[in-house]
């Protein structure tokens, strides 16, 4: 049996992050999840965007350089980070009050699967072999439900080529109908009431190629273009 693998080459993880950074508006409060989302922070330096960390911090600065690590100053991915002018700290309970209370303009989250209705499955990979109700929920369910806009940052398919943009999530969902935008290595896709709208494709790819690795039928935007970076 031939080994399955990804079919197309697209943007690197760093460029997925850049494409999302370009989508963020100035003057907003943003939470970045574990994985590709965290990389977005590399692209917003100097911009008027405030990052929140679930652990209880606003105005999270860049990762701490070697030798500057303070064990009392980490982000929600357990990475040593730094302070900025205007940083403030608060409790985890306050942090989630803030998240559920609708104060995150945007949450950028990773995903295992996204459905055409905007359902997000990201917290529990059944391949680990645990019962479906246990796993690393972390703050993902609160963020997915609380943020005004949820952007998913992920690779378009798994390493084995399995589809991640699906009609219905097979994996346990994080939240229902919350995803507004999907940015992958291959495409930028809006989740709308009418279905998934393909807005941008990676350089060198055709909409048909993107459709071939996307389970739901894509609506081609009349303004379809190459991914802008």
């Amino acid at each position: 049996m031939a080994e399955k693998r990804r079919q197309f080459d697209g943007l690197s993880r760093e460029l997925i992050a850049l494409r999302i950074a370009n989508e963020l508006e100035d003057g907003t409060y943003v939470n970045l999840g574990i994985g590709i989302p965290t990389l977005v922070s590399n692209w917003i330096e100097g911009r008027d965007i405030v990052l929140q960390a679930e652990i209880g911090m606003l105005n999270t600065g860049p990762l701490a350089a070697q030798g500057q690590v303070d064990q009392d100053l980490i982000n929600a991915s357990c990475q040593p980070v730094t302070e900025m002018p205007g940083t403030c700290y608060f409790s985890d309970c306050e942090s989630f009050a803030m998240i559920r209370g609708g104060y995150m303009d945007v949450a950028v989250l990773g995903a295992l699967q996204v459905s055409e209705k905007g359902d997000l499955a990201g917290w529990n990979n059944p391949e680990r072999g645990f019962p479906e109700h246990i796993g690393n929920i972390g703050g993902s369910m609160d963020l997915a439900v609380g943020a005004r806009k949820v952007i998913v940052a992920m690779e378009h398919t798994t390493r084995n080529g399995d589809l991640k943009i699906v009609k219905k999530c097979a994996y346990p969902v994080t939240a229902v109908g919350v995803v507004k935008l999907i940015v992958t290595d291959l495409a930028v896709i809006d989740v709308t009431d009418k279905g998934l709208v393909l807005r941008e494709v990676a350089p060198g790819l055709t909409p048909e190629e993107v459709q071939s690795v996307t389970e739901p039928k894509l609506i081609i935007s009349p303004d379809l273009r190459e991914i802008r970076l």
Partner: protein
Amino acid sequence: MDKVYPSLDDAIADIPDGASIAIGGFFTAGTPVQLIQALARKGAKNLTVMCQSMGPGNEDITPLVVQGQIRKAICNYPFYRSATRGADSPFEKAVRAGQVELEVYPMGTFIEKLRAAGAGLAAFYTPTGVGTVAERGKEKRKFNGREYLLEVAIKPDYAFVYAWRGDRTGNLTCRKTARNYNPDMAAAARITIAAVEGLVEAGELDPDKIHIPGIYVQRVVQVDRPNYIPSID
């Protein structure tokens, strides 16, 4: 009220088998590792622990698992992200073998349930988890057209918390992101035991910068600043 205990072992001496213990800290930050180590020395069994992580960034909890002290864990981030590292983890093995019961909540729900206990509230309705497996066995109810889940308070017998500074009457000041779960766990528990890096006299802390009022803290022990290298892969 002088709440200072002479040693870690004295401070936890009365914890019985079957106790429930909330443990502050978010990965490496603000975790009362010395109290966890003392609990491992003491060896109380059949415990319920409530904390963020059962291993990742909190390896000091592993001896409690290996020694079979934990009957049940209530947390939100129990496992290593890496399946390989997870396969070697005593906690994951214990869960798979059915030796430890595991209850997982969304992070915000987890700490809000503890906050509710400390605040004398019986339960609350949260939008988090609607439409997911977190719904199972829970009442779902609409308010203004939106669905919410009923979550009841969880009241631990003990809390272990960590603070940067503490005075003899139990007032505690935390530092940066090491605050995290500590204030709400302190309020939730019947008996809160605080490990503090710097013990000072009453009046030495800025009264506008006390994150955990002394009324929530029954015992205070001075400890050395633990040395961590943040990592959770």
